């Protein structure tokens, strides 16, 4: 049963009024612009025992995602595909409001929103995770661990999930008839990732939209819309979350803004991963960069695009 929360995060009324009056002027208590994310730190391969992992600090929100591949049986309706399972734990370290115990509706919602953002767009190429068709496949366990709660848990979790998936590796397994031998600590290659998807959460108060709300801002918001954005510019999922309502016009403005911010965010995550793990496909990265240089020389359009995105960046400062 879902109940109107009675023990939400509480801030002094004066502070809430200040936050609102500042937002109305287009600034935020932290000094950020309305369309700015907080400072983002991504550390990949954070958990040596996981097959892929990432620690993400978004402002003061901290999330760890561990990806593990284990042998399992495929779902009967998809015998030639591996499986993904997404779970989220709101660890009691993260907030005085989090109690030990099974995941509550917020943790379940978070995990299911992330799960949906990956599933239908086939972010992971599950057809490459089959060992014995119809019988044995890799199950990709994505475990989201919220360590410290300072708002926008969904985006922080989504960023950590993407970073963990992009650095995850498939364990070495040898198939001998019906038997499968898994060599611990040995890998056959990177996890096949088709599409990069990230969520962008946009808060709404009055008719003002703001990106990446912190926990104090979340208390004053009317509602939030979570928009999953893919690297090819499509909407991979949506979730209105929170008690308020949105007009159609507001929804359209929010999705438009999310498409722009999502693209920037994916680029940011890719960059931070390249810095963190230069040994993974270092040659490919160099080649990619070369390719970009060539493309820039050859095409005026590309130069124009670069100019536009730089302008966006300046606007956001």
């Amino acid at each position, binding site marked *: 049963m879902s109940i109107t929360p*009675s023990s939400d995060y509480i801030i002094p009324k004066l502070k809430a009024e200040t936050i609102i009056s500042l937002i109305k002027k287009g600034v935020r208590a932290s000094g950020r612009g309305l369309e700015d994310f907080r400072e983002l730190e991504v550390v990949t391969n954070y958990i040596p025992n996981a097959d892929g992992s990432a620690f993400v600090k978004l402002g003061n929100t901290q999330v760890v995602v561990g990806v593990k591949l284990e042998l399992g049986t495929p779902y009967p309706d998809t015998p030639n595909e591996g499986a993904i399972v997404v779970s989220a734990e709101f660890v009691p370290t993260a907030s005085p409001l989090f109690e030990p115990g099974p995941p509550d509706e917020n943790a379940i919602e978070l995990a299911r929103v992330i799960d949906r953002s990956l599933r239908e767009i086939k972010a992971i190429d599950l057809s490459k995770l089959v060992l014995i068709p119809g019988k044995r496949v890799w199950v990709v366990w994505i475990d989201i661990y919220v360590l410290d709660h300072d708002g926008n848990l969904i985006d922080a979790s989504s960023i950590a999930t993407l970073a963990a998936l992009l650095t995850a590796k498939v364990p070495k397994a040898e198939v001998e008839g019906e038997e499968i031998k898994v060599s611990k600590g040995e890998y056959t290659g990177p996890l096949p990732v088709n599409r990069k998807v990230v969520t962008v959460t946009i808060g709404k108060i009055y008719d003002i939209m703001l990106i990446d709300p912190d926990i104090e801002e979340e208390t004053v918001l009317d509602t939030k819309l979570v928009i999953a954005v893919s690297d090819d510019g499509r909407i991979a999922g949506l979730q209105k979350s929170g008690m308020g309502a949105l007009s159609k016009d507001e929804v359209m403005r929010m999705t438009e803004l999310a498409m722009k911010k999502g693209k920037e965010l994916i680029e940011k995550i890719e960059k931070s991963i390249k810095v963190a793990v230069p040994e993974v496909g270092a040659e490919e990265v160099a080649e990619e960069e070369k390719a970009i240089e060539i493309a820039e020389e050859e095409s005026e359009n590309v130069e124009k695009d670069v100019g536009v995105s730089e302008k966006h960046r300046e606007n956001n400062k």
Partner: protein
Amino acid sequence: MVSKVEKPKLIREDGLRHDGRRPDELRSIKMQVGVLKNANGSALVEYGRTRVLAAVYGPREPQPKHISLPYRAILRCRYHMAPFSTHERKSPAPTRREIELSKVIREALEPIVISEMFPRASIDIFIEVLNADGGTRTTSITAASLALADAGIPMRDLVAGVAVGKVDGVIVIDIDEVEDMYGEADMPVAAAPSLGKITLLQLNGVLTPSEFKEALDLAMKGIQEIYKIQKEVLKTKYLEVKVEE
């Protein structure tokens, strides 16, 4: 669940859907209010073969008392699927899906209930999916909203819901289970039409921004139609009351 063999053709040669509907055509929608004796308000709503019962109890003393709020009534909402509602028997224990849906349905109703009128009270909404054929959460919202009105709870508007989707590349309204399972996208929407407010919006699947706009426009059109039926059903009930007196 329907056993997944081969993907059926969802849009036929003549442009109609697998069940003969046009892309912008709703299933046959039936609504009844006051179907339960004990509940303060109740409604039975059918979208095609999807059948949902909603009951409202309250405003009443919350159980346990400490969950109450001093400035408003709390809403308690349970979305539940009956064990016989699906093709294969569903365990009556709440699934993760039902827990999430209970939350999004509650959040779809919160903006329209004038909860400030009943401090420290609880308004309880119990939704039972009796037969599932796609669109159960949106049918539930339509039913819950009617049950709230039937219970005489002060409301800013009614909420009506409908799921739009993309099947075989075509944006269609009120998708059923087959279209949900084999389609490319499923987007449940609920709105309070007179307020012009969307109170539930989810998307499972992938849409381009222009497809999304088309889908949202189509959903809002369908919601208007369903809203009309809701109002008609409530009015009819009060006409009957008059006759009895």
